[in-house]
């Protein structure tokens, strides 16, 4: 199941684990990323809490946790090479995997059509 937030994140949900990243639209708006800071595995985060920080040449931006859960894995590849987020934001440029406290809460997020309408 693929879901989106109005904070320009995508969630690919398999069982109770969501793989989370930022959308192609967000990556394009941010421009060339030069630094990514990710949460450590084991961190519990509430929806809306700052989960990650990305920095472009110009500015820093926060990435928010889309739902309540616990970080189970972070993508070291984008820490080593932040440009991966720009080149493949919805694939190899994923940010972290989140074990959802309440998987049914994902139903309230946007589907792809609704997200596309949001950024149109």
């Amino acid at each position, binding site marked *: 199941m693929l879901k989106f937030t109005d904070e320009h994140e995508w969630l690919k949900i398999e069982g109770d684990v969501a793989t989370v990243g930022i959308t192609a639209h967000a990556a394009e708006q941010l*421009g*060339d990323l*030069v*630094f990514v*800071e990710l949460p450590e595995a084991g961190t519990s985060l509430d929806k809306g809490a700052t989960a990650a*920080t990305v*920095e*472009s*040449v*110009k*500015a*820093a931006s926060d990435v928010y946790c889309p739902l309540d859960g616990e970080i189970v894995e972070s993508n070291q590849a984008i820490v080593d090479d932040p440009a991966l987020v720009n080149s493949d934001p919805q694939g190899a440029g994923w940010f972290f995997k989140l074990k959802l406290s309440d998987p049914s809460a994902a139903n309230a997020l946007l589907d792809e059509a609704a997200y596309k309408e949001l950024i149109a």
Partner: protein
Amino acid sequence: MDDHSPLKRTPLHALHVSLGARMVPFAGYDMPVQYPTGVMKEHLHTRAAAGLFDVSHMGQIILRPKSGKIEDAALALEQLVPVDVLSLGENRQRYALFTNDQGGILDDLMIANRGDHLFLVVNASCKDEDFAHLQEHLSATCALTLLDDRALIALQGPRAECVLAELWADVATMRFMDVAEADLHDVPCVISRSGYTGEDGFEISIPAASAEDVTRRLLEHPDVLPIGLGARDSLRLEAGLCLYGNDIDTMSTPVEAALEWAIQKARRAGGAREGGFPGAVVVLHDFAQGAGRRRVGLKPDGKAPVRGGAMLYADAQGHAEAGVVTSGGFGPSVDHPVAMGYVAAAYIANGTQLFAEVRGKYLPVTVCALPFIIPTYKR
């Protein structure tokens, strides 16, 4: 600035939009922050080939001596800047500062001697105040004009000379800070060999009506790409150059800002025209006694950029305050984060380890010499 006033447009606005630029408000103007190329590539292209910047938002001011003698305009202007304007030769340009009575910096600017007048280029955000300041103090001796019918572009980078030489062969005879008049595609332009990127290059003042045409023709050259404000900022930061409002302002003095080089001997203690500018007592005192703090380069040890506003500490726990970062970001050419800021006199030595507070952490940074790159000015 009234947040609700409509953004002004430069004569090149339509060109930026047609090139796909992302436009942002800057100093009251709707300006290109980047083109589809992106900040990183725009920055690197400028250092590898040539970048073209629209800096038409900056103020261009003419100071014409009522006596007809350029010396009178130079001496009048020296009342407002701690700079030796009198010795500036014809068709030469010099960096300068307007100071206030406390020795703070009202703006930084370029002054060119154009033979029968002085030509000033000032920051966009300060231009109305600068012009009023000049009128208040100099209108008895000079006729002042804030030009609103000229665009200003910068062509910067190692290929800039070759690009411009295709339109005007004599450009090769200019050296850093020379100024000349030349026709580019039959349009009369005023060209200075200067810029704000650390690269060799030129700033070109063009009549507004012809600005888009001349700029489009320059952009046709395969070595030239349009460059936005994003890369302009990272280029000047790597070059160790101050951004007014960030790195210098009314609360910083020229000596604190490490801009002693901009104050020539004639205006310092014992010089032929010692003092005689606003805040001279403070500035000359700083020269004699040293300032309590100083602008320095800062190299973050890690990969995280340290931005303007970050506090600096002498210890990793954030107990002993050491200063503040005024500009910081990522340096694409040096491939690591770069910053500058003010630190207390005890911490100005190169190699001093400090800690910058970023998102609740204390990241190690090292005080270092500016610039971060080696400038390629053709002196």
